[in-house]
């Protein structure tokens, strides 16, 4: 049951999008989000959608994968729509029934907000679908490098992320094992009221916690034995390289932002 959880879903591939430097992808995602939030015209949303489709086509990510990823967000999207639809003030009333009132401004805003949320999440999904978690970690470490001057432990943070990712499957496996062990002793994890079930989780969480601490201890020892000495003076086997592809991607990003600003100016 726990095996179904897919974290940091990454679909390996060998497309121009997959092969971009993770730093480029991270920066362009930020540019994309900033662009998305400056959009205030239908033409702008069409452009964002076109850009999204283009990246999807090039990276050969199937729309179905994206839809699957968006499913858990249905509630938030519906909530956004309802909130904007019914609670936007305006005098161009389209429909009224007792205290429920829908205005034209409200309808427009609801559609715009839903599009914004959808495009925002889809954009970040495309990043994680085409970039391995390790590459994202590496890219973040490099991008946040200048913060080292401000004594932000950038390397340590990225190592923590890397170790967390490494141990997720191990801990899921362990949780499964503890669950089986407790069930074998008659623990009931599936029925009962919510508080009862929450309470039933306790005999699961405590062993998991204790074993995690033990693991952390052993891992720290093993790391020390492999000469881990903090981020200072460390080198990397895999170095990130920017190529002409990255330059091209940045040009496309700039064009994207330019077009959005132009559409905004023209009001289309």
């Amino acid at each position, binding site marked *: 049951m726990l095996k179904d959880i897919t974290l940091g879903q990454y679909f390996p591939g060998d497309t121009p999008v997959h092969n971009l430097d993770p730093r480029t992808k991270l920066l362009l995602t930020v540019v994309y989000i900033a662009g998305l939030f400056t959009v205030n015209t239908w033409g702008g949303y069409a452009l964002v959608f076109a850009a999204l489709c283009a990246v999807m086509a090039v990276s050969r990510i199937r729309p179905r994968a994206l839809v699957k990823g968006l499913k858990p967000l249905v509630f938030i999207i519906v909530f956004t729509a309802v909130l904007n639809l019914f609670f936007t003030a305006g005098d161009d009333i389209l429909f009224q029934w007792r205290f429920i009132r829908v205005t034209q401004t409200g309808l427009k805003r609801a559609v715009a907000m839903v599009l914004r949320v959808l495009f925002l999440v889809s954009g970040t999904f495309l990043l994680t679908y085409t970039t391995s978690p*390790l590459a994202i970690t590496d890219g973040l470490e490099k991008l946040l490098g200048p913060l080292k001057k401000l004594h932000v432990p950038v390397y340590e943070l990225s190592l923590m992320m*890397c170790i967390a990712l490494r141990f997720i499957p191990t801990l899921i496996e362990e949780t499964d094992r503890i669950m089986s062990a407790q069930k074998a002793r008659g623990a009931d994890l599936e029925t009962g009221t919510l508080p009862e079930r929450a309470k039933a989780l306790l005999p699961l969480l405590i062993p998991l916690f204790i074993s995690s601490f033990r693991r952390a201890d*052993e*891992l720290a020892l*093993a790391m020390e*034995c*492999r000469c881990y000495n903090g981020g200072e003076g*460390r080198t*990397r*086997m895999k170095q990130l390289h920017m190529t002409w592809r990255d330059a091209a991607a940045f040009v496309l990003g700039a064009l994207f932002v330019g077009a959005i600003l132009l559409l905004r100016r023209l009001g289309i």
Partner: protein
Amino acid sequence: MDPVIRIENVTYTYPDGARPALDGVSLDILPGTFTAVLGSNGSGKSTLAKHLNAILLPGAGRVLVDGMDTADEKDLIAIRRRVGMVFQNPDNQIVANVVEDDVAFAPENLGVESAEIRRRVDAALKQVGMYDFRMHAPHLLSGGQKQRVAIAGVLAMDPEVLVLDEPTAMLDPRGRREVIASVERLCRDRGITVVLITHHMDEAARADRVIVMDRGRIVMDGAPGQVFPQADRLRALRLTVPETTELILRLRAAGLDLPPEAVTPEACADAVKEALCH
């Protein structure tokens, strides 16, 4: 030949321990040898292992690695680079979520230049037969494979000594065989000094030298062929003898004249064949 590790009269008591875990241990480990350390639980064998790369520092006496005192803080990294350590649980030694990135961890820590890291990682993975798995996620490997990755992770430091603290305790028979075969190859072909802490007599039978510990002291020390035939003494120390030795001792009791020092399965088979053909 100068010993690569010299242990001089070391005594160590854990902070919460009533009696010393190590009690006046002296030992020289020669380069390129394969030493197995045996002993029942609480005999001090793991404590001894932890002294070899300065995880624990002696309460009295000293440990020298290539002439460097482990108590000397400034030589810590140099000592740990020379004496690699592999632990029991392979899951808790692997840092990264791709095999080759994990093997690269130690040389990255040492500040090795990236092309050289690549070379060492590939070489280390080939030495333990895991090169084809270099892009795999560690959690999808079997226990024996994970443990070999952990060994490769240590080999990438280019160590002189490989200390393994019960590396096969959590593995199935097949994983055990794979790991021990890799370790033996590293010692015989690459000349790496191996110190293997183990509970398994058949693994110890493959060593050049067997050290038996009891209550923090070394009580037996010699070639497997000299140590294992002393079955009564081993049993008194709550240890068993390898099945090969057991067989030979019983055949001897039954009147066959077999050499008691034939402890590896190959030597034992040859000896039995010899005796039966005559």
